[in-house]
């Protein structure tokens, strides 16, 4: 029951983070949304593990916690060094 409540809360926050990623005017908003979406996925997987009585699946969220960091660093680095000289945030206009 309490895990279900936690899952629900996390799902709601995931939806909100997704909305930020879809809307986010600048590229950094999107990166940040991806990052916290990843964090929320970590929580979600952990809670689902408990929800289904198999908490030994925490390995997955551990992997996420690590990989998420790598991805954020990579994205950040890419945009930091590739964007120079161009107006960042502008090519996102496709929305």
């Amino acid at each position: 029951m309490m895990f279900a409540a936690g899952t629900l809360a996390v799902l709601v926050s995931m939806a909100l983070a997704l909305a930020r990623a879809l809307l986010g005017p600048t590229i950094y908003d999107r990166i940040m949304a991806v990052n916290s979406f990843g964090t929320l996925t970590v929580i979600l997987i952990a809670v689902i593990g408990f929800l289904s009585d198999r908490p030994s699946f925490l390995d997955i969220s551990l992997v996420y916690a690590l990989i998420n960091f790598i991805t954020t660093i990579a994205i950040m680095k890419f945009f930091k060094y590739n964007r120079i000289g161009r107006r960042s945030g502008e090519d996102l206009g496709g929305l």
Partner: protein
Amino acid sequence: MAAAAIGMIRLRNLFAVVMLSGIFSLSAAALYVVLDAVDVAFTEASVGAGIATVLMLSTLALTTTEEAIKDHRNMSALVVVLIAGAVLIYGTLDMPFYGDPMAPIHLHVAPLYLRDSIVATGVPNVVTSVLASYRGYDTLGETTVIFTAAASVMALIGRGRRKVKHGVPEGAPSHGYSSMKPHPILRVTAKLLIPAILIYAFYVQAHGDFGPGGGFQAGVIFGSTFILYALIFGVDNTRIAIRGWVRRTMMASGVLIYAGTGVAALLLGGNFLDYSALLHDPVHGQHLGIFLVELGVGVTVSGSMITIFLIFAGQDR
């Protein structure tokens, strides 16, 4: 699950596609966990969220980041897609329902695997035992595909410096996989994290028999460690840390370990990839065989991932 699906559908309209594909893969993995496929979720976690995004970004850095603005509303494509979707939905009307235990897929070989694999191989993770033992040929083939893909990437863009004819102006600053000198905080944290991730990769490799994990996942995590290293300390340093011949040897030797296990079984009187022949006790033999095979897979995958990344990242010099 529905939220994940909505997010995925939304994805196609967007321009910052690569980042959204990161989100896409995250939600896909959450979906896999809900659907009880933890090993798949593990793989998607390590592959989709990490390596695929990083590779896409590297390609973007090498080419252009801006899509030509034009009207994408392609009616004929939409019509074809809608027709295909409608036909498929019509096709699903005959499919078994979600979660139906009597669906044909659950009746044929799966109960056999679930019942026998613990007895025959002593490995509680059925996915691992099926992967490495029952469907060993398959996995051997797939490991070879990975090896071949990495080798092809090497052949395509691995050699020589590219000559930029058009596109990116020459004066553009370096594309960003050079070292990250002015980031002391990142460097210190990376120094703390990298050994931890490496140890964790080995844990995943060894624990694959008992929980989610195994060669593919461990290989990818191992590879991501070096990707992190390359991101923070620079590609050149990574090339020094793990030399070209080491990478190539890793790629090749993984496949060799796998195939060699099969040949060893052959020499010891079994069939190819029949691990029961490896030791006197068939169950222990199976266990050893699965371990060796997973090791081979892990070595190949990590070698390939590091190679592919370094090739992509090292392009712009």
